[in-house]
């Protein structure tokens, strides 16, 4: 019911900086240049200058684990969306078929065996300044009809070139709409003007990436357990594994360590051989979070141990909430 301007009208009075008087900078531009030049590169590595402690709002740390967003369709309440072509009919998503669909065994022993036998991936023999990832995503966010029954989301394709200091490029393209069930597809086809808008443009939007610290993932089990947030359980660990493989080019030793860490996380079940949405053969584990009515799925390459894809499903009814397929990972010196 309200757009950017109304958001400003609502939130403006609550702006903590609204009446704050900002004094002139205490250091000059020249001093900042000197600081930057002094800390930029030491023997090819940036020297990290200790900074004064800053504190963050507790609210910025809060997020629901595994939550999948739903919202009402764009209509008059979405003035921020530019005029765009209407959504075309798209795929109805079906769940990945599992080798062990009913009564799957515990995943621990299988994950340990996999960790012991994985081989080098193609990128283990590459070098380059940039980590390259090509992924296809769907389901972030999912849009839902006003009655809450019909869902749609647009698939998107992302290519990211990212150096160790975080800089690089990200190119994103919005693809076709996809639906978690036939009823949703039928509904959105009927809705015409009320259905969500798509950008419909084949041209990717390219964003230059600002720098940030990227620490290569450790193969040390204790550090990996912390990185993967296993203390929060298998659902959180699944999400973090997805983030890890979407952000880094993970070397073989670390891939094996990831599998061994997951083997010790309670709740993962072994689903055996599967075919991912890109048509690749993989092996899968799932975690069923009955409390939140959802299942996390991880699909690994049976030869290299790389993560091929991850998905989130609702259990009642069984329906895809989101998926990510990692189509390519590489080291390169060229930014696209």
């Amino acid at each position, binding site marked *: 019911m309200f757009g950017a301007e109304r958001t400003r009208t609502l939130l403006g009075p609550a702006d903590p900086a609204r*009446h704050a008087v900002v004094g002139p900078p205490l250091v000059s531009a020249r001093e900042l240049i000197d600081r930057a030049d002094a800390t930029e590169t030491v023997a090819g590595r940036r020297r990290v200058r200790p900074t004064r402690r800053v504190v963050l709002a507790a609210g910025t740390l809060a997020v629901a684990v595994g939550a999948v967003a739903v919202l009402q369709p764009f209509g008059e309440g979405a003035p921020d969306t530019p005029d765009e072509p209407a959504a075309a009919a798209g795929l109805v998503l079906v769940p990945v078929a599992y080798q062990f669909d009913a009564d799957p065994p515990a995943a621990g022993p299988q994950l340990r065996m996999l960790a012991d036998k994985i081989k080098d991936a193609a990128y283990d023999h590459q070098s380059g300044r940039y980590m390259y990832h090509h992924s296809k995503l769907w389901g972030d966010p999912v849009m839902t009809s006003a009655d809450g029954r019909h869902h749609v989301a647009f698939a998107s394709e992302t290519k990211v070139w990212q150096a160790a200091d975080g800089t690089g490029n990200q190119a994103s393209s919005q693809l076709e709409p996809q639906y978690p069930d036939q009823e949703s597809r039928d509904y959105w086809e009927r809705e015409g003007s009320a259905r969500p808008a798509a950008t419909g443009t084949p041209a990717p939007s390219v964003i230059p990436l*600002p720098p940030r*610290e990227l620490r290569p993932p450790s193969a040390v089990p204790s550090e990996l357990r912390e990185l993967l947030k296993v203390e929060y359980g298998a659902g959180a660990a699944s999400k973090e594994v997805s983030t890890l493989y979407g952000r880094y080019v993970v070397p073989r030793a670390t891939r094996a360590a990831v599998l061994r860490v997951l083997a010790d996380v309670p709740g993962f079940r072994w689903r055996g051989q599967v075919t991912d949405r890109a048509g690749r053969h993989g092996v899968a584990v799932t975690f069923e979070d009955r409390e939140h009515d959802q299942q996390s799925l991880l699909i690994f390459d049976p030869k290299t141990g790389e993560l091929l894809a991850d998905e989130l499903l609702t259990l009642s009814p069984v329906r895809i909430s989101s998926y990510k397929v990692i189509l390519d990972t590489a080291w390169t010196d060229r930014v696209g």
Partner: protein
Amino acid sequence: MGPPKKRDEGWFTSLYAAEYEHMVRYGLRRLADRDASAELAQEVFVVAWRRRAEVPERSLPWLYGVARRLLANQWRSRRAAPDLLPITDVDLERLAGSSGADTSVGVADIWTALANLNDLDQEILRLVGWEELTVSEAAKVLGCTGATAAVRLHRARRRLAEAMSDRPGQTRRSPVLMTIREDL
């Protein structure tokens, strides 16, 4: 986009003069400390000088993106530290300025409701509502497409309205996990 214009000290000095205040205000909206906000702003411009060839003509969203990442890095590096201080409502009132006008019940409700949203919801509301970015610019800060940002804003506004309608007496949700999904 085209090649950047001459990126010399004069360009940087102009950029610093034009955008410093925006960066300090960005910090004030997210930190509990004026000095920390000023320091954050300085760090943003240190990065901007190092990466001057990459700073777009319309620089503000890029600078906000740097600030967001600096804050995220800071949090990641300190996540195990027991003395990490959250901003409380009291902190926010203290930061709200000297007029006292912002301590009304409505404003407090908005702060409480905002604090109950997840990071992405909060951030897009702040970027649009306080930093006054367009949805397209906010998308650049968050590293997503404009359409995704529009959807996220729509969702965040709805959740904010729901959170406000739940007041008062709703307990603040405990921090669970920091998630910046596909945050570049």
